[in-house]
């Protein structure tokens, strides 16, 4: 069974640009979660999508947004990039009803210069 995949693996942007990160969940999983792992801050919850809808978001500004497509894959968009957005962005998927066992992708490392 293929695991959660994320693309790209690395992304380099400059301040003010926009970044788009992509995630494909495990087949059959309907929920996708996004987390930010910045140096020294640990994993912070960003967004949760289920069945195409945004269900919950963490304490991040509106320039962090995303969507979930009919095939349950997801996109995270970060507008007006700031230096402190440099981090590892992790995507996880789960099947609602199985508790919170989330399966993680390898992450996208975003560097903002």
């Amino acid at each position, binding site marked *: 069974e293929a695991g959660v995949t994320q693309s790209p693996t690395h992304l380099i942007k400059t301040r003010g640009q926009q970044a788009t990160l992509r995630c494909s969940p495990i087949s059959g999983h309907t929920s996708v*979660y996004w*987390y930010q792992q910045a140096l020294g801050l*640990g*994993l912070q*919850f960003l967004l949760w999508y289920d069945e195409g809808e945004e*269900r919950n978001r963490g304490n991040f500004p509106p320039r962090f947004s995303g969507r979930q497509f009919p095939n349950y894959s997801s996109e995270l968009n970060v507008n007006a990039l700031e230096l402190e957005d440099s981090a590892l962005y992790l995507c*996880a998927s789960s099947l609602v009803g199985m*508790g919170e066992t989330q*399966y993680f*992708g390898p992450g996208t490392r975003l560097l903002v210069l």
Partner: protein
Amino acid sequence: AQRVTQPEKLLSVFKGAPVELKCNYSYSGSPELFWYVQYSRQRLQLLLRHISRESIKGFTADLNKGETSFHLKKPFAQEEDSAMYYCALGGAGNNRKLIWGLGTSLAVNP
């Protein structure tokens, strides 16, 4: 407020020694607690969930609601246990997300 605390950033033990990684949480409802592990150059993966009450790779964790703790234990550490360990707290309903501790890096020395 929901919070997970892992007081040790780094824990170093010798092979064969017992190991305990501490996790304390703050949550007003019935918590769902998890331990995730990240081995070198691998992705985060679930180690165990309190709801399953299982032992994985010799590790166990018991939820103590009185002490609001979910410590991870193994009686005899192995070198291959060296990894980053994260304790996570899950919500329910529309609060379905994971809140993470900062992690403990376990080094098992030969």
